[in-house]
């Protein structure tokens, strides 16, 4: 796994949204979930997107994760405009550029940890031996080198989320996108996982974390607050000021 280049002020943003809007049509009712959202995230940045439920942060996360496309505006990810891509092309972008970490972990319970971690590599055509090697290395990185053959059911919540982080890392993506990664964890495990994100950031990775908790958001460099589908404020977090 090559280490991404260190954050550089002058570098092109890895993620740029320009005037993004999203309208859901449910029957005759049209719901505007996002309105005129513009933001940039530089390579190596650690950004938290915060907002109460219903604020549109989930919709923003789906668009950032290429799980959905914006109705208006444009979205560039790692230099590519993904706002008008086909479903197949989006699948490839998700596979190569984005590492997801979900609130529900979303591990396949029938597979041991390392098979869960290698899953994204299966879809990018990496050979079997290399997949296993990379999966084991990613698990080592999240501190689970001794649990590679455990199934998700045999691991604690915090450990399961670490497996999920390893899975997000394994493809060496441009962006790690975490959606409420601590939502299902106790305080101890939460701190653990947030520590892991901080370490990844220190290694130069780009992390975008979506949360509704102030404490969690505080671990990032910058907090983007969303309210009623619009960016309300962008503030540097306390952690950033400590640095």
């Amino acid at each position, binding site marked *: 796994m090559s280490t991404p280049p260190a954050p550089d002020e002058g570098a092109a943003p890895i993620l740029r949204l320009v005037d993004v809007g999203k309208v859901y049509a449910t029957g005759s009712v049209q719901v505007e979930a996002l309105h005129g959202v513009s933001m940039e995230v530089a390579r190596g940045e650690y950004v938290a997107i915060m907002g109460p439920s219903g604020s549109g942060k989930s919709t923003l996360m789906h668009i950032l994760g290429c*799980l959905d496309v914006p109705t208006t505006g444009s979205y560039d990810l790692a230099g590519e405009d993904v706002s008008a891509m086909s479903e197949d092309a989006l699948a490839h972008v*998700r596979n190569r550029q984005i590492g997801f970490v979900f609130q529900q972990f979303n591990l396949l319970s*029938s597979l041991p940890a390392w098979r869960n971690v290698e*899953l994204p590599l299966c879809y990018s055509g990496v050979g079997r031996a290399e997949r296993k090697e990379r999966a084991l290395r990613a698990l080592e990185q999240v501190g689970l080198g001794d649990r590679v053959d455990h199934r998700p059911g045999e691991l604690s919540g915090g450990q399961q989320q670490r497996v999920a982080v390893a899975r997000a890392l394994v493809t060496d993506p441009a962006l790690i996108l975490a959606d409420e990664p601590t939502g299902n964890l106790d305080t101890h495990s939460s701190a653990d996982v947030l520590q892991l994100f901080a370490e990844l950031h220190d290694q130069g990775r780009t992390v975008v974390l979506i949360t509704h908790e102030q404490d969690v958001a505080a671990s990032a460099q910058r907090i983007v607050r969303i309210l009623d589908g619009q960016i309300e404020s962008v503030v540097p977090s306390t952690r950033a000021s400590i640095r």
Partner: protein
Amino acid sequence: MTWGETFRTALEAIRSRRMRSSLTMLGILIGIAAVMLTVGLGQGAQAQVRDQINQLGSNLLIVSPGSTTTTSGIRGGRGSASTLTTRDATALASAVVAPDIAKVAPVVTGSQSLTAGTTNWTTNVVGTTPDWLSVRARSLTQGRFFTTAELGDAAAVTVLGSTTATELFGGRDALGQSVSINGTAMTVIGILNTAGSSTTTDEDDQALVPQTTYSSRVAGSGSSTGISTLYIEASSTNALSAAYQEANKALLSTHAKTALTADFTISSQQSLLTTATATDQTLTVLLAGVAAISLLVGGIGVMNIMLVSVTERIREIGLRKALGATPHAVRRQFLVEASALGLCGGLLGIALGLVGAQVLPHFLDQPVTIPPLVGVGALGIALVIGIVAGVYPASRAARLAPIDALRSE
């Protein structure tokens, strides 16, 4: 995702839901086994009939008297009048009249009581010529058949069927013993090999005597030249239809009849075979239809399970899509899974069918012949059923939006 990877994933999915997968396969398994066994039974019955008929003699034509047409246009049934004579036999045996006829055996039969010592046995007594043995494709286990000289002399000799010999003499050697037929003592000169029973008569229970002996000593009265059946052996299987034409023509001309007023009927083994196999085929088609319906039900079972599977694994599908699975890859995964279910069910069904083919004959007294092609075909059908049953669930899975799939609880 490579094909190998897709297969591995499919097999893992099948294995991880063992109970459900086996029940799904059971539907296909039973269907395939049922189709194989019904086809096997049909084939077995046909082969049996074919063997029985071939045993009666190859290249054989049978001329029966009857079918006389009265002036009112009513045709009498086969055998309703004895219009055949030994003269017909002599005429047909001529190489000039009928070059494609190799041998002719006139036969005159009647039920008679046979006595050996104190044992009585009533059986069919057949008066014929030495050619009978060859025409009916029979052989002897012991002794010899009667000769042309014995035919000329109306010798008091007889050849017994194996059953007849056993009934009259028990385990003792029948050869050289004396048997009384209708009061005339005859010497047993030969015993026929067993031929099994045809559909109408027991070929092993009969007593053969020279035709001249039959008319002068066995049959009390009546025509000394009238015969009940004429067996004709064509020179080869290919010459059968030529022999048929020649016999028909010769008999029509000697009897001074036209095709419409013919007083005889010529039938061939082929026509018997056709009738017999046609009956079997109807039954086979009927049974195979029932089996095919059970296969269809099995296919619906596969589709049902795959649909349940898609709903149940909606989060897995969402996750796979989020991790980079294209709709195409998801569709392929579910299609392969459905086909694997069909294929495994098919393989097990073939195994069960083959076991059934070994076991069933012990209970049914009916041979089961499964042609290898049926096995291959059954496997193909199972695979096709799996694929067809998988298409709809697979495209449903492929169409799922990743966010909807991930969101569902």
